[in-house]
């Protein structure tokens, strides 16, 4: 909470610096009537002072908040008496430190309060307090120093606008590189954890093994203690659910795009298009709920009435609902490419005596095909990465099956299950999620790059 107060104080300091800097510039020029003697507009001198006062201090604050906790804990652990830490494993030590923190913050404790623990908690509270105070001092001192530097530089001939603009430009460059940093962060973090996983489980077993049971046992002598990480059942499950989804989405999406752009009267189009796009805006968790509680029981009853044995969490239910979700995606992308086909091609076809459907089937679709394929690839990538629908409606059992009425599991489902329970960062079980994440990221990335390339190349063709 105190961090937020410091942030507010810092904002106040920046406001004050703005006014002071502006005033100094105006007075230096010889009063409000003489501002034309300044190099820049007065506001730029204020902004210059505010940026100098605020930016370095904000940066320091962010760093400090990020690192203080770890630093205090490190100091604390170094100062703990020998007899408390002797013979403790890393996990036990973590628990002890947690107890100390809880005691310091006055929360309920799981263990008895010993004098040593109390002493350690007091020590923690002292260190924490010390950290807080030094943070306030350091941040405010830096802000004042910054303001003072700006104050010293402000005189009528000073090129404040150029300085401010350089800083703003630098900030904008920084902002645009965040996108790159994000990709880099994704690749590095996922890759790093995956490499640790592959040092425990061979990639060959992971990509070619057909047995998936990641539950590592509590005791070494338990049955299935080693855990098996053959991801093939997950890949086939993902492919099956995605294939069902595409079987629903591509015909319906493509046909409705054709109908809406070529046949539909304007009024129908004005209503139907936004209503269909509503499907794209519905959160996936809602589809998941719909699939698990409405579609899956319906399919099971339907199957039972014709004597089929349908799992209560069938791939079919998840795939169908996912297909519905992707319909607007396919239809809006195909509509874009269909509309991009020049009218002259249509006119030429009509002039030869073709009917509308013949024109569509033999002229427009072939002309728009690359774009449509690109759109479908994007839709496939979306289906593979979709999580909530399959988490809620597909199962957890890693079956290697080709029967859509059976329960299957997918890559995304396993990532969620592996990471939402208790976590230890070193176990193969947790790290397996990152290996799956890497596979998912790589596959969708390739699909996206190819699809975007096709779509873009196609768009330029008729421009």
């Amino acid at each position, binding site marked *: 909470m105190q961090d937020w107060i410091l942030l507010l104080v810092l904002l106040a300091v920046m406001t004050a610096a703005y006014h002071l800097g502006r005033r100094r510039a105006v007075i230096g020029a010889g009063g409000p009537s003489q501002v034309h003697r300044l190099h820049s507009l007065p506001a730029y001198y204020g902004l210059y002072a505010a940026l100098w006062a605020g930016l370095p201090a904000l940066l320091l604050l962010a760093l400090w908040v990020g690192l203080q906790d770890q630093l205090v804990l490190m100091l604390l652990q170094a100062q703990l008496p020998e007899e408390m830490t002797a013979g403790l494993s890393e996990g036990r030590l973590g628990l002890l430190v947690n107890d100390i923190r809880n005691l310091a913050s006055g929360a309920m404790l799981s263990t008895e309060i010993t004098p040593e623990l109390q002493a350690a908690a007091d020590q923690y509270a002292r260190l924490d307090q010390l950290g807080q105070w030094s943070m306030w001092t350091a941040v405010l001192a830096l802000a004042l120093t910054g303001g003072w530097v700006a104050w010293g530089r402000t005189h009528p001939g000073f090129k404040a606008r150029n300085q401010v603009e350089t800083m703003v430009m630098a900030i904008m460059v920084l902002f645009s590189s*965040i996108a790159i940093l994000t990709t880099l962060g994704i690749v590095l973090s996922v890759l790093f954890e995956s490499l640790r996983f592959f040092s425990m489980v061979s990639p060959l077993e992971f990509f070619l093994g057909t047995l998936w049971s990641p539950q590592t046992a509590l005791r070494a002598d338990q049955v299935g203690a080693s855990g098996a990480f053959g991801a093939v059942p997950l890949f086939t499950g993902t492919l099956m659910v995605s294939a069902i989804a595409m079987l629903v989405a591509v015909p319906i999406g493509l046909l409705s795009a054709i109908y809406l752009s070529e046949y539909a009267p304007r009024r129908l189009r004005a209503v139907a298009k936004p209503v269909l796009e509503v499907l794209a805006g519905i959160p996936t968790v809602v589809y998941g709920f719909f699939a698990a509680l409405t579609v899956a029981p319906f399919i099971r009853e339907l199957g039972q009435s014709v004597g089929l044995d349908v799992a209560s969490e069938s791939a079919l239910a998840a795939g169908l609902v996912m297909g519905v979700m992707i319909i607007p995606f396919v239809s809006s992308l195909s509509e874009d490419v269909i509309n991009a086909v020049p009218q002259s091609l249509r006119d030429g076809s009509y002039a030869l005596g073709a009917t509308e459907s013949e024109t569509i089937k033999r002229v427009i679709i072939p002309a728009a095909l690359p774009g449509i394929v690109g759109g479908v690839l994007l839709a496939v990538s979306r289906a593979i990465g979709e999580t*909530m629908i399959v988490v809620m409606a597909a199962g957890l059992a890693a079956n290697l099956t080709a029967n859509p009425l059976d329960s299957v599991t997918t890559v995304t489902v396993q990532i*969620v299950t592996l990471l939402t329970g208790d976590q230890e960062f070193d176990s193969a079980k947790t790290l397996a999620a990152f290996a799956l*994440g890497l596979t998912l990221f790589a596959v969708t990335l390739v699909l*996206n790059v190819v699809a975007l390339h096709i779509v873009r190349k196609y768009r330029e063709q008729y421009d």
Partner: protein
Amino acid sequence: MTDQTPASAPNQRTIDAVNTSLKRRRAKERRFRRLGAAAVALGLLFVALLFTDIIAKGHTAFQQTYIKLPVALERAQIDPEGSGSAEVIARANYLGIIRAALREHFPEVTARRDKRALYQMVSVGAPQLLRDRVLADPALIGTTAEVWLLADDDIDMVVKGYIDRDLPESERRVKDRTLGWIERLEAEGRIAKRFNTIFFTNGTSREPELAGIAGALAGSFYTLALTLLLSFPIGVGAAIYLEEFAPKNRWTDVIEVNINNLAAVPSIVFGLLGLAVFIGIFGVPRSTPLVAALVLTLMTLPTIIISSRAALKSVPPSIREAALGVGASPLQTQFHHVLPLALPGMLTGAIIGMAQALGETAPLLMIGMIAFIVDVPAGFTDPATVLPVQIFLWADSPERGFVERTSAAIMVLLAFLILMNLAAVLLRRRFERRW
């Protein structure tokens, strides 16, 4: 164009060949058109089905069953010394008072097991509600008041008709004995459905009748506010630089392709990033709006950058040239002239990005938003959950009472999403400008 059969017989002309095939071709045309119309109809049907299903399941959750009983609030039990202090009143045994009221109303129930079943008709949260009521109105002490007591979720399900009273007793959650009491209370007019304020004021709970969305709404609010605060300035800044200042070279090409790809990366991957980097390396506290906002910022950034660039592109170059011509610096041109004109388009993109963030679930599961948190969060670093994750958690709960609550929470979520999208559409209409 299809039937170009060469005129084999000397007296057959092309027109005859066309005429003979024309009927077939027209039929094909009609079939194709009907197929297209059917596809559109099917799509519309799905929308209708989804909404009617959710509303049919969820509308009942906005009402909750209460049982009206005369409750004797004796002074001796609540505030024996007549001190009137809130602390004493708060500590009284309201559970006992409610149980006494139940025994009073059903004097014939004497067996121990029957009594237990009788007590279970009232929610475990009822004593606290009664306490709050007495605290708010101490004048009630010493009187026998007719109090609406919150019913248990099983009773609620019977009254709302979700538990079939005609089923054989062994297949029914509510036994015949309890059913008899319900029917008697119904005949006396002592059971009624009243507006469910608990749903909007409580955090979540293990008991369906006490579970509400206030905690999740607050969590969503803090998360979205911080997401907007972070992603809008960053997105707009990046868009201005990339669109207006960046030199056209390999590096900016890489950034461009990269942003387009990020927009299509599965959201769950962002959750992995958040877990490994924000929680693992920077030690941001898990399950807080802060870490959720950081992840959602990275996720919505591509959307905002792409739409902001489109908005900048639609501002005609003449505006820039005029500004530069009268002596504005390139940055002044952008911030004083181009940005104000592009702002409505940027805001539209931001609203759409926020709607996406509001409905997002998968990455938040990875960073601990899935924890069971009863308290309503009061800041960016309090443990919290968000509305879609709450929906996910409730959808997993086995109690029948949670089905209607999940649907109702979905209705609230969809209402917010529709409002946001409507705002985006209106904004676009209001400020759309053709140059």
